[in-house]
């Protein structure tokens, strides 16, 4: 009898659910705000919301928190000099677990007063969530997703984001890889290179690119991997042959690079250490005679001095493009607000036409976005020339000197 009751209940339940499902998906708009979210007008009030999708907790927390510091620094500077304030709404994406990034994307999409998004921080997150943002009409401007395929189609595959929705204020992996391999081969004139990536997407993209270019120019390249959680590199260092001239470590964590350098020298190996923009941290990575490729930041500018003062003398630059991303979105909102109303589509249109002068962006170059493919590896959403990486050498005492 009980089983019969249960069976009947079960059928009723399934029927209810199925009916409701069909009703919800075929009925005309029954609940509020089914209007197109991209063109919905929001009155320009005193405060505007910009979302920021970044890893506040989890494995990549140290990088995400750095991006947050830069973004909040932007917010405070902007709010001091503008009447219409910006408020950054945080979204914790817990990189590399993209499930949270998706949840954040849906939340941002549904927040009716949100006008633009800084982030997401990881290239994989961008790929997984950009369609959610597109359907909501939101433009995303990231300061750290550098995978080339996000803006430029590879042979046989489409580009990974829809055009005119995704922008980045950081040059992509190909640009950085080109700089690095050119410098190693042409300036340093070294031919025995050991590349170690740290098993996550940013690093692997760069390492692949540099490996390809170096091999094409007849350098002898060995490729190895290490996990981001490792701090004892002694066994890895054992594997590196003593006659290696350059070790290229496109890692994200400057502290680990510093450890790697000291352990390398303790083991008696004299290879030059070459890092990527993740290691651009004058307070942390101070290995003398090492090289780092990064955007041509001017650390003597007033803005960077203010940042250092406000953050207990921390000198870090990985999160700087997030500042620029915030600036891009805020400028677009301000322009759209000239007529008293603003919509996400308007903001997006203004972002496409961004023109920011060199002094404001803090990156060392002016920011404009490309509208179509350009050069060998850039596409719609990348920054136009002269946006590119520079190479810095670390002199004695930990001072970063630009050499290229």
């Amino acid at each position, binding site marked *: 009898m009980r089983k019969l009751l249960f069976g009947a209940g079960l059928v009723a339940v399934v029927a209810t659910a199925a009916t*409701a499902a069909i009703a919800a*998906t075929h009925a005309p708009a029954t609940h509020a705000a089914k209007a197109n979210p991209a063109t919905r007008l929001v009155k320009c009030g005193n405060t505007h919301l910009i979302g920021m999708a970044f890893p506040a907790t989890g*494995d990549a927390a140290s990088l995400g928190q750095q991006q947050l510091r830069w973004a909040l620094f932007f917010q405070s500077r902007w709010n001091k000099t503008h009447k219409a304030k910006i408020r950054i709404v945080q979204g914790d994406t817990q990189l590399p677990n*993209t*499930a949270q990034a*998706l949840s954040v994307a849906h939340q941002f999409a549904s927040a009716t007063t949100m006008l633009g998004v800084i982030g997401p921080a990881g290239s*994989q997150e961008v790929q*997984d969530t950009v369609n959610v943002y597109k359907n909501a009409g939101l433009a995303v401007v990231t300061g750290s997703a550098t995978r080339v395929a996000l803006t430029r189609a590879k042979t046989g595959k489409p580009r*990974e984001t829809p055009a005119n929705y995704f922008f980045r204020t950081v040059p992509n992996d190909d640009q950085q890889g080109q700089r690095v391999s050119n410098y190693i081969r042409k300036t340093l004139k070294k031919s025995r290179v050991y590349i170690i990536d740290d098993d996550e997407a940013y690093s692997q993209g760069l390492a692949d690119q540099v490996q390809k270019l170096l091999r094409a120019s007849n350098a002898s390249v060995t490729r190895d991997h290490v996990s981001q959680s490792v701090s004892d590199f002694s066994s890895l260092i054992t594997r590196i042959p003593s006659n290696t001239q350059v070790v290229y470590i496109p890692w994200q964590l400057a502290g680990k690079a510093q450890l790697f350098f000291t352990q390398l020298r303790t083991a008696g190996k004299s290879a030059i250490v070459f890092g990527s923009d993740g290691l651009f941290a004058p307070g942390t990575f101070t290995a003398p005679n090492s090289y780092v490729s990064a955007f041509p930041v001017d650390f003597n500018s007033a803005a960077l001095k203010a940042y250092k003062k406000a953050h207990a003398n921390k000198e870090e630059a990985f999160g700087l493009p997030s500042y620029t991303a915030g600036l891009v979105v805020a400028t677009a909102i301000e322009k759209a607000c000239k007529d008293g109303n603003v919509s996400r589509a308007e903001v997006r249109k203004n972002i496409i036409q961004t023109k920011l002068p060199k002094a404001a962006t803090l990156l060392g170059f002016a920011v404009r976005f490309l509208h179509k493919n350009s050069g060998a590896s850039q596409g719609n959403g990348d920054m136009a020339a002269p946006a590119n990486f520079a190479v810095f050498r670390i002199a004695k005492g930990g001072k970063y000197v630009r050499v290229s």
Partner: protein
Amino acid sequence: MPDRTDLPAPDAAPDAPRIGVDDWVAQAEERRERGRGVSGFLGRGWESSPASAKLLVLVGLASTLPFWLNEGDLFSYGLYTLLYATLALGLNIVVGFAGLLDLGYVAFYGLGAYTYALLSSEHYGIHWPTPAAMAAAMAVAAAVGLALGFTSRRLLGDYLAIVTLFFGQAFVAFANNANPKVAGEGLTGGSNGIANVDSLSFFGYELHTTEQYFYLLLIVFTLAASALFFLNQSRTGRAWRALREDPLAAEAMSMPVNRLKLLAFMFGAATAGLMGTIFASIQTAVVAGNFDTSLLITLYAIVILGGLGSISGVIVGAIVINVTFEFLAPSSGHPELKRWLFYGVIILLLTRIRPWWRAAAVFVGTIAFGFAVHAIAHAIDPSWTSGHVVDAGRLAGAIEAWVILPTGKAKFDTVVYIGLVAAIIVVTQVRGWWRTIGMIPTLYLVAVVWENVLVEQPAVTRLILFGALLIALMMARPQGLLGTARVEIV
């Protein structure tokens, strides 16, 4: 004979078994009291209704969610709750029914997701029809579950736990790092994972929107819950319970213990595999980072908070944990609501102090103490009270007059936070008047820490609160919300 001062005093350890007292009989009057009145009537009505009715009510309520939640909230609160609830149901089979500590459960979830992604995406260009791909994913997960189950023949308890943990970690390492090249492409896509996974489509009906996935998950959840309910009532379910309580006695009663363990592993793995396919198509991608330890901890928290072996407990646990977690997320909006809620919870906890005049004294004392400290700090140095409250709305003025908000004090955050933790520990260890007096500065410190430190870092705060919630829930109800209290025979 030395003085026996070390025997437990009668009321010092309320959870310890008391010699010579039958608790169940002693609490008969209390039970009768609880059954009176409207709430008692409803409670008895709920408890005596058949399980199908309860499920019907729950599913009925849930199916109305898309009509009053916006899309983002539906995604975070509805979709993910159902996903985790069904996953936790599968874990409940292994841990709750059969009593096997499986710490590699998330790997089966990943196996299902990756298998589906490999069979229905651009990665290899294979696009199997959804039912076939789902069946294949479940089969692969069940097969690996069987293989892992074989290890349970030799390993017991914590040793089984550790081997399953290795398996879980090995799976993530394999997917993220190893990524061997098979047929020209890396099998798992490495740290980039597999992208452009097809959406589920049943007999031509493709699922795209959040609502469609919500209803699909609701249907899957209903089927899974009912299946588990039947399984629990069946012979296998009873055999599992016997296995959980006392494996040796079960074996002596001629139950096929090894076969039961393998069956538990397989059922759990198959459920996880199925949910993996649904998750892969919701995210339209699969990444190794989706199957890390934090998901495992969440699932275990759900199962244990709800009460091991209880289906309704798992449902309640999933709702509590996911809703709390998502509500506290910084992106979920309503920052003012969170502040109201925070202070509301504090006041609610205050009302649990008996007698009422003590609670009132603490409340009034805290407010007075706060104003006093504020005045003194302001007199010493105005920079102690010159800060501003974040996201306060209407309460801003009141709070700024009550809580000290220093600007430019570098170590303030650290000192006051550690001070708060120390104060809480001290207050819970003392008793009587000392406790009442100690609560006043502690509560004020709570407000200070909240306004100065926690509000600015909502993402980290929610994890801290989550940890505190786990501890508090275990103190309050160690058997979980709907679990049965175990009776220890001395």
